[in-house]
């Protein structure tokens, strides 16, 4: 069993055609600055360590970092993690494109002993955490079933845009679901989360991800 870092998990998603944030791991403050300049600021900066999967719980995530703050933020994250998780093996700091505005979606996989992999879809935040408003399918699924999964949750009208919010591209979500289904078939996944997948009218992008593989 192995836990993939966010960056590794996103490389996996990317291999299957799922759009992910532009990002790269920096192992020095200067490199962080170079990456940020290339991506365009502001950026998100996140600790990258195979030993830390809940990064924000340990103070390993800083969002909206402006150009002039990249170097100091790098140093601050590293020293914070060394204090909070002294034994963690630190790969560096992930410097990442800030997520565009949009709907927060969660897409996941779980391996089940009886039926193989199940894929989950839901809206992020309270919809998942409080109402558990999610839909499931045993993989593989095709686009038609992906669209069914999306329309099945109670909160699905939210995606069509209510109360002045812009709608989300539902075909883009369906494409991601089908790709995740392919990942389940091809890779040895135990659990996978894309959380959040940000979706707006233009498309979907995986902003954070984690995976546990065999």
């Amino acid at each position, binding site marked *: 069993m192995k836990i993939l870092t966010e960056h590794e998990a996103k490389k996996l998603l990317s291999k299957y055609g799922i759009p992910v944030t532009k990002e790269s791991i920096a192992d020095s403050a200067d490199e962080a600055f170079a990456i940020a300049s290339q991506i365009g600021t502001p950026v998100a900066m996140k600790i990258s360590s195979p030993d830390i999967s809940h990064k924000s719980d340990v103070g390993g995530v800083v969002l909206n970092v402006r150009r002039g703050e990249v170097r100091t933020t790098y140093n601050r994250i590293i020293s914070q993690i060394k204090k909070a998780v002294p034994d963690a093996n630190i790969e560096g700091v992930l410097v990442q494109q800030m997520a565009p505005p949009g709907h927060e979606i969660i897409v996941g996989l*779980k391996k*089940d002993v009886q039926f193989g992999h*199940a894929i989950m879809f839901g809206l992020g935040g309270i919809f998942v955490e409080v109402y558990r408003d999610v839909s*499931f399918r045993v993989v593989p699924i095709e686009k038609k079933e992906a669209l069914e999964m999306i329309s099945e949750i109670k909160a699905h009208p939210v995606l069509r845009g209510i109360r002045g919010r812009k709608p989300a591209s539902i075909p883009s979500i369906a494409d991601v679901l089908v790709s995740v289904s392919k990942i389940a078939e091809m890779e040895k996944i135990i*659990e996978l989360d894309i959380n959040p997948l940000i979706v707006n009218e233009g498309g979907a992008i995986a902003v954070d991800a984690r995976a546990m593989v065999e």
Partner: protein
Amino acid sequence: MGLSSIFEPESIAVVGASNNVNKWGGRILKNILSSFNGTVYPVNPNEENILGVPSYPSVLNIPGEVEMAVIALPAQAVLPVAEECGKKGVKGLIVVSAGFSETGNEEREKDLLLIVEKYGMRMIGPNTLGIVNEPVSLNASIIDRLPSKGPLSFITQSGTLGLALAEWTIDMGLGLCKIISTGNKANIDDVDIIEFLGNDPSTSVIAMYAEGIKRGKAFMDAAIRIKKPIIAIKTGVSKRGSEAVFSHTGSIAGSDEIFSAAFKQAGILRVESIEDVFDAALAFSCQPLPKGNNVAILSNGGGAAIVATDECEKHGINIVDLTEDTREKIKNIVPEYASISNPVDTAAAVSYKIYREAIEALLHDPNVDALIVIYVHTLMSNARPPAAAVAEMKKETQKPIITCWLGGVGTEEGIEILKIGGLPNYSVPERAVRALAALIRHREFLKKVKIGGEV
């Protein structure tokens, strides 16, 4: 290899047979003897005669062929007997004995399976309550009554609940074709059973009580392939996701959620309660599938019609707009203050003529795919004439009709007419609607898997 050696054997040995019918080996032997027409051989080295039949010390001493053997012995004695059965040329085993994987004795179950496979036998169990196959009059189970003939086959994993359900089915007068207690499913599992029942011409609807499914994917494929309705109640421990929460998905995706998804994808009708299993089974056993989702309701009481309407809405069933022509016909049938739109309420007017003509008009309406007929009993009305009207109209239609004769004392004779007429009747409108919803769901599933044209 097929399962016919177990379900349709020419000859049966009962190993562990006993004169004491309170013991498993005694009870099952008694049930086989009182139902089965083939040759039966009790096996017990300590007896010469059991329940009036000559007993043999071992299956190897039996002079004739033995097609199937029931083993009801303590677990530690099962393996050598299975070996003897293999040598004897027995083709099918029912191993009633407990004390295998269900009590943590995985090794013993593996060893038993090796023997079964070595001789190319098939096995139900271990830890099974046995099987019943009504069409060949075989009761190789501990259930002490044979059900009446019917199209429903019932699969139960094990346990007293499964047994009680089987008994209850018999009490309800719901005919049964087969009862199969699968036990630990070491050799014959859910997939084998579903495929077997799929090919069984006397089974047209399957009910199952499952705690878990072996070979989940293959089970889903088999369920889709056979096209027959499968109604399931799934219990057992619903494991919430992983304890050490790694992912959100892991924390939400318990075994139960995945079960529901899998069943839905395979077109298996997962119902909420035990009552719903048999209510749906009853509807499937005597009604055709509706062509669509559009339902008309006829009632002599507005309240009951509203309850039915609400329940329809809950299950996504459309209370369809009637055609002008139908409304015109109904207007001439019911009192002028009655409701002539759907749900049709006769405003307490009940007679053979009113029900018959109203049902006829509703069934002829091209918008209507199925009909729910409700009768609310009052001191001033008679439950029989409207029942006779439904039974009469049922003969002339290909659309499903579900009935609800509401009111307890005074309705029995009407209900009897409905039963004889092959109508599924329910005690309350909600149950009637849920049974119809099951028919609609199955029809929609068949359409979805693109075989709808064949039904």
